[in-house]
């Protein structure tokens, strides 16, 4: 592979140099009718290439895309995305056609006279107003969805979970019975209290610190994000969720998981993607890939940014309750440590 690659580079450079020295001997700087005819045709060839590539990617790369949203809030994201993508797709095909077809159709020649056409208020009105109307629709739906996702007031029965970022790992803290997270600040980091929870705060006592994220299906989760060092971003692509973790402040995001991890593994899209991945992994002799929800760091944060991941498991409510009850509270952990 590598030898081939170097040969390829070598040949490419060789051909370039040879071509350049040959071509520089041709005089000629201004396009004549022969050039116009040739490059008009190449414009059509290029258009064909562009269309082929666009269609190939749209059809055959579909399998690598993220599966349908695993959060209830994300459903509208998917719908809005589909509407937008269809729209821009159509415009893209249409505009590229015009650009390269006109290049071919009106390629210059001695016999052709250009049309003196400097202005048309009607046309300009049309293409100012049409995008404006379309945008009103997109912006309207988009803003409705944005408020829908970002509004975390009136979520009394939401489960509060803190996601905590540091170079280069993630931790989480569950709020316990009172569903209220105790105050946290880097000044309280000490020994086993690695998230800097203020144990004098009465809300802290029943908080539970974990290294794996369990979420119950069908319950709204109210995430609060903190970072102890640099900017990180908690990116949960399957849930259409992302929020930066900013040192010095608490950021928030919320969603309601729609499918358990097990259910998600049964999704046709996930199965199709997994088959593709496993074909590659088998050829390399790696372990097979099994779908899991992930939280990835998506804000450049240092050397190991590329490997800062956190597993998320979505389970049914009763399984979640069992798991949570097995986790020790911070009070218990700290007293044992002493």
């Amino acid at each position, binding site marked *: 592979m590598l030898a081939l690659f170097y040969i390829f580079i070598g040949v490419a450079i060789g051909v370039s140099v040879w071509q350049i020295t040959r071509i520089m001997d041709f005089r*000629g700087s201004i396009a004549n009718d022969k050039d116009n005819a040739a490059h008009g045709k190449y414009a059509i060839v290029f258009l064909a290439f562009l269309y082929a590539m666009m269609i190939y990617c749209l059809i055959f790369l579909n399998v690598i895309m993220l599966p349908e949203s695993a959060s209830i809030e994300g459903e509208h994201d998917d719908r809005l995305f589909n509407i937008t993508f269809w729209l821009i797709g159509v415009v893209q095909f249409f505009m590229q056609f015009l650009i390269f077809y006109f290049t071919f159709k009106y390629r210059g020649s001695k016999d052709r006279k*250009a049309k*003196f056409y400097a202005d048309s208020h009607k046309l300009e009105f049309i293409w100012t107003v049409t995008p404006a109307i379309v945008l009103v629709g997109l912006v309207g739906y*988009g803003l409705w969805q944005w408020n829908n996702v970002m509004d975390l007031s009136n979520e009394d029965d939401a489960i509060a979970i803190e996601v905590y970022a540091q170079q280069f790992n993630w931790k989480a803290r569950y709020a316990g019975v009172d569903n209220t997270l105790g105050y946290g600040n880097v000044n309280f980091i000490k020994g086993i209290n690695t998230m800097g929870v203020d144990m004098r705060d009465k809300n802290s006592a029943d908080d539970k610190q974990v290294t794996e994220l369990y979420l119950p299906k069908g319950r709204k989760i109210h995430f609060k994000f903190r970072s102890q060092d640099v900017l990180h971003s908690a990116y949960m692509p399957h849930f259409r969720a992302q929020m930066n973790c900013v040192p010095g402040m608490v950021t928030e995001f919320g969603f309601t998981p729609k499918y358990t991890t097990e259910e998600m593994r049964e999704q046709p899209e996930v199965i199709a993607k997994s088959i593709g991945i496993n074909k590659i992994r088998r050829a390399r002799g790696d372990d097979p890939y099994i779908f899991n929800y992930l939280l990835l760091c998506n804000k450049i944060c240092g*050397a190991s940014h590329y490997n800062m991941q956190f597993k998320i498991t979505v389970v049914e409510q009763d399984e979640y309750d069992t798991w949570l009850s097995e986790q020790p509270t911070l009070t218990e952990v700290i007293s044992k440590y002493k």
Partner: protein
Amino acid sequence: MSDHHHKETFVTKYIFSQDHKMISKQFLVTGMFMGIIAVLMSMLFRLQLAWPDTSFSVVEAFLGSHQTDGIMDPDIYLALVTIHGTIMVFFVLTAGLSGTFSNLLIPLQIGARDMASGFLNMVSYWLFFLSSIVMLISLFVEAGPAAAGWTVYPPLSALPQAIPGSGTGMTLWLVSMAIFIASSLIGALNYIVTVLNLRTKGMKMTRLPLTIWAFFVTAIIGVVSFPVLLSASLLLIFDRSFGTSFFLSDIFIAGEVLHYQGGSPVLFEHLFWFLGHPEVYIVLLPALGITSEIISTNSRKPIFGYRAMIGSILAIAFLSTIVWGHHMFVSGMNPFLGSVFTFTTLLIAIPSAVKAFNYVTTLWKGNLQLNPAMLFSIGLVSTFVTGGLTGLVLGDSALDINIHDTYFVVAHFHLVMGVSAIFGMYAGIYHWFPKMYGRMMNKTLGYWHFWITIVCAYGVFWPMHFIGLAGLPRRYYTNTNFPMFDDLADINIVITLFALVGGIAQIFFIANFFISMYRGEKATQNPWKSNTLEWTTPVEHVHGNWPGRLPEVHRWAYDYSKRVDPNDDDSDYLHGQDFVLQTTPLLELEEPS
């Protein structure tokens, strides 16, 4: 001024020149040099992305202590993408593009002897040169150059404990940028004053070629927004070196709590993007201006909707200063602000659409002279549309949540501002090379250069959208730690191959450029049969541009293929040829423009 000739020595003519034409060439060559470095960097990190576990002797040769057995270290990967972005955005597409063509064309196209201040113009170039040197020196710092991304968000960029590049490398980055901003501001002020005050007789603002409108408005955006980045850089220097807390708060790193209290990284993001977003248009507008001029000339048609084009340039410029928050939808700022920025951002689509439609209408029923410059301009329209459309996805805050900082963004901005702007720059070079060097560039090499470049540009950036939609974050040194991205490996290889071929194809351009400078065909005075004033100057440069009196302007720049009977496209040309110089007085039957 024209009759007052200075004695010119080698130094005053070629080095400390105050002549705008020479300064323009200095900007161009420096910008090209920086561009080559940035392209080579991109080829190195594309190798890493395609074959992360493979040892490359080029990596070993170039990266020295920052690699292990021919595989680059994660830190230097981040440094490479950081410096690639910085150089491309600022040194190539701001100074290299605007600096070259604003300097060359503003005096020539408005009918002025030189810039308002030749001295400041020279200072502007030499500050740019100095900042380039400082940036290049930062590449050789022991701990590596700045590596916090070209957006240099603190705290990462403020703390050497967080990443080694944030030590001396980052200091040099900030110093270089501060000098760069000074250069850019001096240049921009000069452009504005020159356009406002030194237009020749008859050159009303509404007769200016669209190139000048674009440069003029670009300069205004620069003057409005660059100082904000300067203050952000200064505050960051204070935080880094003098212990202030503008951007930092509550940090625990390397086992200790730092003293910083009360600052906010989000503040830096606001300040950065207050320049950062207008910067996109600082890069793009000159390219669009150049394209307007070249498409019109080579279509042998007036640019369609001249006033609408000026209107959209002004609208884009205004809107560009109130949309910066769309880079920060998930930064933790108030969601209400996100709503506002979504609204203003999508508004920009309207003037942009007007521009795209106007270009296409200009091509319609033209007599297209497909010179390399024209092809690059058409290519610009194509990539501008492709890249612009995906902006409708990213600008919508609800959709941005899930594709923010993925490769979808990388593909979007490379097409819409990277490839488009560089196409505009290439178009400008092919078109005005005869004005710069008195010789023509070879068209055959130009054609090779264009077709390979556009195929590779699409080959790189079209598939890249899809790996972004698969959820792949940008700035990952390798994706191998995530089995869910294993099926993207082949696409990454394809992208890298296109990138390598596209990069190597630039040899066609570089060779053409330097060989034509000495051996190219001698240029005639008006090779493209263009209307604008620069083609009324002699081929051999003279100080003061026009040997005699300054030309007088009687019409706009776009009287191509004007007919005796305006309603009959087959009637004779009004002035006997399909172009009418701006200096040609109006005939009695013509309507004044």
